[in-house]
């Protein structure tokens, strides 16, 4: 299983990146109350996935030191962009990160099937379902925010 441990490491790191990015975006848009609070809730989901993965990591080892594939990890979001247009782009970036998390879990779940590793299968399927909830919220919030952000230009004086 030379590459499963690589992907386990990728899941762990991607969830960490997503959680950190969610918190950074939430802090950056703290004046938008629902974004502030919900990014915190969603970040906790990712924290929880990492906790659930920990015993599996202990079994397989977390092999973060491989050459294949190249460009394994995606960069996180260090800070939020400004304003309502900025929020749109931030939500899009979070969506991309979450999609990477989801497909990582998909790959791991396939591997777990092949290995008949029930623990890993349960962990990956539960995490995937939760990642869907995160993605669904990004989409819901994007749709609600888009028209106002795109069409009505806020006056700079209001900032």
């Amino acid at each position, binding site marked *: 299983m030379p590459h499963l441990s690589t992907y386990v490491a990728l899941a762990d790191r991607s969830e960490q990146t997503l959680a950190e990015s969610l918190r950074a975006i939430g802090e950056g848009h703290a004046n938008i109350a629902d974004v502030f609070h919900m990014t915190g809730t969603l970040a906790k989901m990712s924290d929880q996935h990492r906790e659930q993965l920990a015993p599996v990591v202990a079994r397989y080892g977390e092999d973060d030191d491989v050459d294949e594939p190249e460009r394994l990890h995606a960069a996180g979001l260090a800070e939020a962009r400004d304003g309502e247009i900025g929020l749109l782009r931030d939500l899009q970036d979070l969506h991309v990160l979450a999609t990477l998390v989801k497909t990582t879990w998909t790959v791991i779940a396939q591997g777990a099937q092949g290995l008949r590793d029930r623990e890993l299968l349960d962990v990956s399927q539960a995490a995937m379902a939760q990642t869907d909830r995160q993605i669904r919220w990004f989409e*819901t919030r994007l749709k609600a925010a*888009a028209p106002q952000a795109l069409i009505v230009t806020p006056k700079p004086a209001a900032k």
Partner: protein
Amino acid sequence: MNDRIADIWGERTPHSKGTVWPARVDLRLDDGVNEADVDRWVQSACVLCSNGCGCDIAVKDGKMIGVRGRASDTVNHGRLGPKGLYGSTPWASSPDRLTRPMVREHGQLVETDWDTAMGRIVEVSKRLLDENGPLTHGFYTSGQLFIEEYYTLGVIGKAGLGTPHMDGNTRLCTATSAASFKESFGADGQPGSYTDIEHCDAIFLYGHNMPETQTVLWARILDRTRGEDPPRIVCVDPRRTPVAEEADRTDGVHLAPRIGTNLALMNGLTRELFVNGWVDDDWVQAHTIGVDDLRSTVESYTPEKVAEICGVDADDVRRAARIFGESDNILSTVLQGFYQSHQATAASVAVHNLHLLRGMIGRPGAGVLQMNGQPTAQNNRECGADGDLPGFRNWGNPQHVQQLADLWNVDPLTIPHWAPPTNAMQLFNYAESGSIELLWVSATNPAVSMPESARIRKILSGPQCFVIVQDLFMTETAELADVVLPAAGWGEKTGTFTNVNRTVHLSEQAVEPPGEARSDLEIFLMYARAMGFTDQDGAALPSWSTPEETFDAWREATRGRPVDYTGLSYDKLRGPSGIPWPVNEQAPTGTDRLYTDFLFPTDTDVCETYGHDLLTGGTVTETEHRAMAPAGRAFLKGADYTPAHELPSEDYPLLYTTGRTVYQFHTRTKTGRSRSLHRAAPDAWVELSTEDAGRLGISEGDVVRVESPRGAIEVKARVGQVMPGAVFAPFHYGSWDLADVAPGDQHRQANELTMTVWDPVSKQPYFKTAACRVTKIADAVGPSPAPTTAASAPAEAAASQVPATAGGDPTSSVLVPTPHYVNDPSQMSEES
């Protein structure tokens, strides 16, 4: 002659299970006036809570001088409560009514004429439409207008302007009621009926201090609990309310969960149904979806775990669950303790889950009443002046949008439906950032009633947004406006409205409005005409002018929808009683309770929403909904408990919760102008438990400072009945009746402390989950102004120092023969 300040619920008329609630006529007239002196009685219904009591307005010399309950009305059987009796009419002739429009000139509001005021609105409105389009316009209304006014505004906003930014203060009071119905049953609509009270064996009141919020409904319950074969009462409330006392009397249970933990308690109760075999498996199989997911969601919530999270006794959880599991017929009622608290929608949906798991719905005595706070909140939800589309239509369903486009003869693309209509909290966010540049506020007072008052005042008074306020008085909000429009109130205009249990009443104009004040309907239509809104053929939009024409147009908008008004007319509503919808060819006399056939409006083509993730508010797509093939089955939906957003800390060690007193309504616009009600609850206070007061060195009547990270109040302390660790403040008190005090300079407004955070599904703000600290700042010079008669009563130790609240003007109550009520199941069984 009865003092209904001292005797809130009036004399008991006890009766036994399954028999009709006896009729009694309650009456109040101004000093020195007898019934014989009254010139005219004008048919209406009370608007000082959501109960919707039928009443007649007494008119003498062109002035409203009192009210009398209508014995023939199915809602109240002639009774009225203290707010209705004392508060319905005095405000109307108050000398400080707004009688002329006002505009802001050089920073000051000055009186002007209608042409000037409306001219200014239209000029700004047209300019903004030219510059940035309709998304610059926002409307914030009320739970106090009539159907005709909501529907007209809905059409102006959705078909005339094309803005999704339209919501009501119903978002603060009743949004969770609607949201929880939609999640469970597919569409809004109260399943139960008040007549369930006569037939049930147990009543569960969840976060619902009914003795103070709906006094007449509570009187109806007391007439059962004090009669033969009484129901047991289960009370879920952090305060020791009169409901809790009645729970003790009836061998029920009082559960006082720590503030912000309702969902953990509900999950615990739900788990008990599963583990004790109280679930009706066959019924659940036939009529619901989602039982397996729900079972696994609640699996870990043992009574012991619930006890730890909620601070309640594990055996009390078991006892309450046993009452739910073993009673034949149960009525549940829910209000702000759930709606305005953490995980609001999930906790309210959990009440439905309990009923669905036992098949406890759709028959007399087995019902749910998700309450409303305001008299016409239901209509804002129905008519689409809040975050919904008219007729419980689904904004995500193109066919529903097309139906509206056909009805209004406009392009469906005009009607904003790309996402849910904007909720109130988001609306104020946009007004704050300047992307909503025109905000029109009608019949509500956000400067006092919305969370985090300092922020709301800043938004309303800032230069980034042009604010129009339409009201009866110079409220704290009106003081910050750019244009103020004088409105006619209840009794000064004609219209219809619908109470908690779907009963529609006609309220006729009794007197002329003062000065140049006009009805909200006239004002909205004046704006529409001045803007020149038209349909695709160039005809005026809206096409109607009078209240009755508007009602007839609304009726058409409900055709084929669950909220069916097609069998109603003004003439029909002039009969003996209000009539509960649906009223149509199949149900010409109205419908006492919904879902008697266990068929719910969940079909994908019918439903008002495809549903949400209860934890995040993420929306379910049409495709996903269709894949579940609900086909008339109800949804069982659960969610895990999560801790509230602001927990007590070292700096702010106590939990802060806000609420109501029986003698005041909202920001006291009407009740504060009634002599009897004002004297009963003249000023703000804060309630502490005996334990916390003792620890902090605070005695009854001491002046204390209550502080959260967002603001502070300084008021007198009532050492009272809240649970240890919690602090309760009434939210009614702003600055309008304080001489020379600007809206931001008072020291008593409860919402200075609350936080801007809302439920992810219903978008209802959480007024009941902030953290605070309390410090004493001065010794008492007498007791606090808190009433003694209900949940604000002093703790036993302090009770002797505090004079009992009393001294209401005289009223009368007369027992009369109980009439026949068309849909009342008690009387149907007599006939058969």
